[in-house]
């Protein structure tokens, strides 16, 4: 099992969700996140004075998948979230030791 953590632009969430569910994935977790990468922050203006916003709003996706699902899902995220502009985000893949479905007690791939 693997976990995919993807950071994407907020307005790309619907497109990414559609691309991911099209690969047969049954669930994912989304959170609002803030951070910076090479894009750094941006300047905003309030009452005539500029200030820098160092952390930009992003969406963080978390999915735990069976090993064979990882590649198509990564490709789905990549194609749906890409704008070719700085700030498109990143995809991380991390090994997962165990998974349990709380309702039934199922473990492993059956819990996904």
């Amino acid at each position: 099992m693997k976990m995919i953590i993807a950071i994407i632009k907020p307005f790309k969430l619907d497109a990414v969700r559609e691309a991911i569910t099209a690969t047969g994935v049954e669930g994912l977790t989304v959170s609002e996140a803030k951070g910076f990468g090479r894009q750094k922050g941006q300047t905003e203006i309030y009452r005539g004075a500029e200030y820098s916003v160092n952390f930009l709003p992003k969406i963080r996706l978390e999915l735990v998948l069976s090993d064979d699902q990882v590649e198509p899902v990564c490709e789905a995220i990549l194609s749906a979230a890409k704008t070719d502009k700085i700030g498109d985000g990143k995809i991380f893949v991390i090994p997962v030791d165990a998974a349990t479905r709380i309702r039934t007690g199922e473990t492993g791939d059956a819990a996904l």
Partner: protein
Amino acid sequence: MLKLLSKSLPLALVGTAMASPAFAAVDGETAFIFNTLLFLVMGFLVMWMAAGFAMLESGMVRSKNVATICVKNITLFAIAGIVFYLVGYQLMYSVSEGGYLGSLSIWSPDDTAFLSETPEFGENDTYAAGSDWFFQMVFVATAASIVSGTLAERIKLWPFLAFVVVLSAFIYPIQGSWQWGGGWLAEAGFSDFAGSTLVHSVGGWAALVGALILGARTGRFTSSGSVPMPGSSMPLATLGTFILWLGWFGFNGGSQLALASAENAVAISQIFINTNMAAAGGVVAALVVTQIFFGKVDLTIVLNGAIGGLVSITAEPLTPTGIEAILIGGVGGILVPIAVIALDKLKIDDVVGAIPAHLVCGIWGTLAVPLTNSGTSFGSQLLGVAAIGAFVVVSSAVVWLIIKAVIGLRASEEDELAGLDKSELGMEAYPEFTNA
């Protein structure tokens, strides 16, 4: 808003029974009812301005101080009404002609006695005394609301409320007696129809002095310049501004003081038009000026521009034409961003922009009266601005310093950084982690 219509002011001439011969005057009791209705309806519109201030200020403070600013706004409205009942009204309106001070006594309406005898309605300028009291009372809270916005996010609750007591019971009524009570400024020919100086500048001066004594929010000004602290909710700030705009029709319209003749009905209609046009002029001016100054339109300064336009027309909402009202309000809308920048340079921290909108535009509006009202003079307008300014600066400085010495004004730095909601109230404006 002069209470005694028989006083020798130009505005009183419009308000009294001078219906042109072509119209049959309404009978005395009908006039009494219409005039009373005017005070009551315009009065509750002005009362609603307290909600406008509460929402404007809630939107422009950070979320960790929203509950505290809500508490301040509703308690200041309550306290201002109570102390104006107990002390303020008589201090303001029992002043002798040309005098400096009313009497210290609790007001009570003489309406019951008036009705138990055979009522003499006289000319068409009578009204229920209670309706007049109500209309005057709601103005007091406006002055206090101005102070709360400027000093938000770092003044403690109780010292602020202590200041509201003195402002509403003494400072506001004493200077009010000089003009609307028929005191020495009214004798001197000063003219302030609905209170650019008497209400808005008074709040603005008290706020400015308070801001100087209290100091800026921690971290607001650094060696490298000013650090913006964006407010928690722009929609709330905008809603608050719209509520104030609505309430202002009562503020200025009711200050005609009479409705029971065609002449008064026409005058109030013109006041509504001018009030709206001045606010519109202030918005458009601030819109253009912030685009030019900053390269982008600045919403909160545009909101201040609306208020600045409204304050600018408040000293004389009757005599200008619609075009003149747009220009008077428009100048206010230009003064607002300039004053915002100036306060930043001077390191004076005004959270909501009350000093630019209420003080600066209040002075401008008062000095602009002779431009459209030939019965007034620049000299007497300047006298009123200076006399009331000096009185409020000195008296409020004394009060702020006494409160500071006795119970302290500022929250500790630790409390300020944690937010006054947690440190002063032990609660949060938005406590839920997520919507359950």
